[in-house]
């Protein structure tokens, strides 16, 4: 079982002439150069960045997976991570659940004038640490600065490419009735952590975000089970309910979800009750759903449960030819209901 590498390098923030980001830092001149050289390049140091070409030239083999995502989370720092961790792990995981080994990232910032330099460096360091942990290199990027009031401190875009596993053969068209649905860990942890720190909603919790790279465990599943894994997805925004609804809608099949089997931590369940939220719709980060051939479901679960973050992994339901296009939740008390698509922003209710 491969263990992820935990590296924390604490370099002091390099001395800059400014305490905060100014419009000049995005102008392309000396200020931009200083910011890049002393910050981005020195922290993320590699042959491509040292080259400072207009494009990074890289060698790849086989089928390539390619994904992009933009990160605008507020607050920027939260228990268990930063927007920087999310920016790396988010794209890494989109590649991972596509059956690919993530290799290279692009990294682009939109900075708001006035962003504190120390905060920017703190985020950069978390990006570096996340890259080291995931084993990926940032090979190209961009920095723009917008006027105060035109952004929200920092927005980050990452695009990633990776080589797909030779045994990977996944897609909606591979899913069939009787497939088992596995979940790699407890739901809703990231979303509830973020919400607990959001202005106006603060509540005390010991929860940490579950942001982490998933490719090692995903590739291990590929190695062992190959094409018996029919689909993997990371249920970020919209949560597990949204992923399952997309599957039901796109395949025209139905899904039975067993509430009793859903791993929900007590603290998350309590916070959801208080806020009037259903954990199935709350965002996750270091979590994935796997739709697998029923014959390997138990073996697959065994492997997942041996993973360092997989102790509460579970088989949470099955694909069925009954009730096409619908996700039906079998409640823990023996009732059933349709699990609908989320309708937009999650809004905590009044009482």
């Amino acid at each position, binding site marked *: 079982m491969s263990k992820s590498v935990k590296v924390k390098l604490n370099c002091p923030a390099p001395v800059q002439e400014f305490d905060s980001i100014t419009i000049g830092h995005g102008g392309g001149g000396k200020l931009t150069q200083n910011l890049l050289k002393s910050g981005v390049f020195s922290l993320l140091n590699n042959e491509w960045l040292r080259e400072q070409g207009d494009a990074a030239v890289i060698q790849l083999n086989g089928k390539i997976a390619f994904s992009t995502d933009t990160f605008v989370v507020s607050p920027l720092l939260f228990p268990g991570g930063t927007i920087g961790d999310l920016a790396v792990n988010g794209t890494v995981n989109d590649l991972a659940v596509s059956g690919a080994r993530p290799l290279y990232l692009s990294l682009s910032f939109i900075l708001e004038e006035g962003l504190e330099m120390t905060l920017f460096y703190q985020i950069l360091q978390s990006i570096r640490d996340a890259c080291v942990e995931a084993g990926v290199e940032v090979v190209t990027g961009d920095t723009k600065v917008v006027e105060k009031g035109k952004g929200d401190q920092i927005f980050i875009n990452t695009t990633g490419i990776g080589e797909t596993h030779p045994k990977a053969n996944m897609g909606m068209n591979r899913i069939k009735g009787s497939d088992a649905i596995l979940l790699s860990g407890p739901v809703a942890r990231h979303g509830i952590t973020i919400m607990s720190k959001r*202005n106006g909603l603060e509540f005390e919790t010991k929860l940490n975000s579950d942001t982490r790279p998933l490719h090692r465990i995903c590739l291990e599943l590929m190695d062992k089970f190959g094409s018996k894994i029919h689909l993997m997805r990371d249920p970020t925004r919209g949560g597990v309910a949204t992923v399952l609804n997309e599957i039901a809608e796109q395949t025209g099949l139905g899904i039975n979800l067993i509430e009793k089997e859903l791993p929900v931590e007590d603290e998350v369940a309590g916070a959801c009750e208080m806020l009037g939220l259903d954990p199935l719709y709350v965002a996750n980060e270091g979590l994935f759903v796997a739709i697998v051939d029923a014959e390997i479901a138990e073996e697959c679960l065994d492997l997942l449960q041996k993973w360092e973050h997989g102790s509460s992994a579970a088989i949470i339901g099955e694909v069925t030819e009954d*009730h096409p296009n619908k996700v039906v939740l079998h409640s823990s008390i023996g009732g059933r209901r349709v699990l609908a698509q989320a*309708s937009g922003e999650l*809004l905590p209710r009044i*009482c």
Partner: protein
Amino acid sequence: MKYLSEFRDEEIVRTLLGKIRKCVMKPWNIMEVCGGQTHGLVRHGLLQMLPEQVRMIHGPGCPVCVTPISLIDKAVELALEHNVILCSYGDMLRVPGSTISLQQARAMGGDIRILYSPLEAVSIARQNPEREVVFFAVGFETTAPPNALSVEQAYREKLSNYSILSSHVLVPPAMEAIMSDSETKVDGFLAAGHVCTVTGLSEYVPLVEKWKMPIVVTGFEPVDLLEGIYMVVSQLESGEYRLENQYRRVVKIDGNQRAVHLVNSVFEYRDREWRGIGEIPMSGLFLAQKYSDYDATLKFGPLKERSYEDSGCLSGDVMKGKIKPHECPNFGDGCTPVNPLGAPMVSNEGACAAYYNYVAQDSKE
């Protein structure tokens, strides 16, 4: 004791369902007053588990649903035209006003903030002395004490930039109005557990006596709801009517007297319009004279006489139990949670949204 899993126990649920089935002979219409109870019934799939003689009617106890459209329009106006920091509970944001919702007003640049506690709004007022801060004080007897506390605290601190847009409504007058409607088909009530936690039980005694019908104060978890239903059905089948308290672990006979006293000192009782239902006598809480400086409608101008509402929404009939949500001609086609025509399709606790999300899609099979 975790106060959650033991009230979602499959064995106990099965036992209670067995008791209800054994006891019920005739068809009965039981109204759960509170939207939280409606949500509980549909979320756990309880409606389909009940015997068909037990017909649940989903009452008007969703604060978001009954807040008059004129107040939503006023909140939008405050945010966009008076440049106030408008603070609100989350689920008010999507409710359609006569032109736009607060969510749309936020997209147009209104400074609208979602809070969990009105005391947070007071601290925003303290931190922003140059800005006016208005809290959209919506809710039943449950949110009245914290909202009263926010006004009382602002008064004590002499904060002049804090006010509330009050849309407080009360449960017992609504139950009285429902029973007075000649088309009403309600045989018994599950009263709202959390409301009674604040007010106690005394206000419900006259209702039981006048209408000769059972009222059972009930909680929100599956075991609570089924026990409450069983207690109502048992009374109905034996021709009895009395007030009972299923939610004894939380609700005390006298309620929370400190909270009641606070509410009575900050607010006074007046007639209030309920969206979709109309005016109900003495059913609203309005700021008392002493606290009138904290009334946003006095500070920024009164509500418009009557805001325009002609969406085809039949929410009143739904909340009075005359029709089921999916019997409305707009349900699911013209009216969905993404594009709601009326408030009950917005909130999690609204009967239409609950049906749309959990029940009717199933029954359309």
